[in-house]
């Protein structure tokens, strides 16, 4: 099991969700958690103006999605996010990043199931 955390452009969220959905079997549904986050990578944030003063806000507004994935689906999920999250053909700075972490355990609260079947 892996935990995939992806930081993407807010307006790409819908496309990423659609792409993730396509990697699944018929009738299944993706489980994911979404949060609005602020941060920056190589892009240096945004320039704003406040009362005539230029202010560089280090942070840009992004969306973070978190999904737990069984090993068989990891590469498919990464591919789906990669393609759908690019702002333009070929990609550009600010498109975001994908982190893949080992996932030690997963428990479905309702049933108490553990492991891959709980994902």
């Amino acid at each position, binding site marked *: 099991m892996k935990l995939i955390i992806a930081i993407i*452009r*807010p*307006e790409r969220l*819908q496309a990423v969700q659609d792409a993730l959905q396509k990697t699944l079997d018929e009738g299944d549904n993706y489980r994911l958690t979404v949060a609005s986050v*602020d941060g920056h990578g190589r892009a240096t944030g*945004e*320039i*704003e*103006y*406040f009362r005539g003063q230029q202010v560089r*806000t280090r*942070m840009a*507004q992004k969306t973070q999605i978190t999904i737990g994935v069984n090993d068989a689906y990891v590469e498919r999920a990464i591919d789906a996010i990669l393609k759908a999250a690019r*702002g*333009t053909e070929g990609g550009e700075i600010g498109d975001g990043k994908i982190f893949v972490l080992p996932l030690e355990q997963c428990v479905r609260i309702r049933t108490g199931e553990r492991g891959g079947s709980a994902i």
Partner: protein
Amino acid sequence: MFDSLVGATTDTLSCVPITLAADAAAPLIDSGSTAWMLMSSAMVLLMVPGLALFYGGMVRRKNVLTTMLHSFVAMAIIGLQWVLIGYCLAFGTSWHGLIGWNPDYLAFNGISHTALYGDKHVPELVFAMFQGKFAIITPALIAGAVAERISFRAYVIFIVLWSTFVYCPLAHWVWASGGWLFEKGVLDFAGGTVVHIASGVSALALVLLVGNRRDYPDGAIMPNSLVLTLTGAGLLWFGWFGFNAGSAVAVETPVAGSTAVLAFTTTQTAAAAAALVWMLLEWNHTGKPTSLGVASGIVAGLVAITPAAGHVKPVWAIVIGAVGSVVCYFAVQLKARHRKDDSLDAFGVHGVGGMWGAIATGIFCFIPAAGLINGGGFRQIGLQLLGVGVTVAFAFVMTIIIGSIVKATVGLRVTDAQERDGLDITIHGERGYHL
């Protein structure tokens, strides 16, 4: 004291003003009417920030400032354009019923603050200011249709041209003494044709030129705050009392009189009926009575009653408002089928609601002309249809021409990347909300 002049010949005071009038040979200011016109003018202006909130709440958070600015900048631009030339074109001496012109009106330079407007016993300046607020809100209504992708530069240029070459002639035709539709007897109490049909139809024409938003119709385009939208709808309702009841200035002396009260009453009644009907329709149709539905109903009812406000009895205002909601509701649903991204439903509500209101005026009016239900036959409906047809054709064609000129020169749209990242940060260098 002046109030005693009107309809009170038995009043013992009536001799006093007559003597005064004979002495000075100068008409008197009616302070009550002047106060009401000042108040109405301020209330109509308040509708503009109301509209900013109404529209601003419905767009995504990355575009909230640019959308609100469309309304606010109209206050700045048309607020000036009206003083410099707009009033002159709309209400100057009529040239063949087509356009006004009176050099004294340029920059209000020749309008003395003591000069009175017509026989209304209110200063001309208050009339000019009142009308100026209508000129401000009308182009701002159009902005809702092209929200989230129109270039700010293009919008600024467009509204100057549109106000000068579409709004001013239309206002002259319909409202000015000598205007050709006015002289024919077309009724438009407070702007069903001039404001709502004109802005709604122009909105549709502009959508055709600007195109849909990049995320329409496949992306999830959700409002950033319906709280703002509801607040805006409330301010619009409040301001609309000035819009409609203040428009008694066109038909009655004293202005703050029975026609103003009639318009006030019909305005309240139609808005209430429309809000209720929209809510019930939607509740029945989708199972959910939404807050945006109630807000939309309020606006649809207010739009529908606008041309009829001082011409119909309150009971018919219920019908006008209720039917207004029904036609606007279905017009908004229809949009999904045609895939024309009139983003905030400027055409669906103002265009369609305005057309219904203008025609309904011909059905239900009892003063100054008898409509269909009051024994007047189809004559007034015919006149109203003329008003609607002329306004639709003129506004559509002129907007296509003006829009095409702006498109060919500075372009109408922002770049795809600007649209993607939001107009607030890319054009204005600001965000509406931080952490």
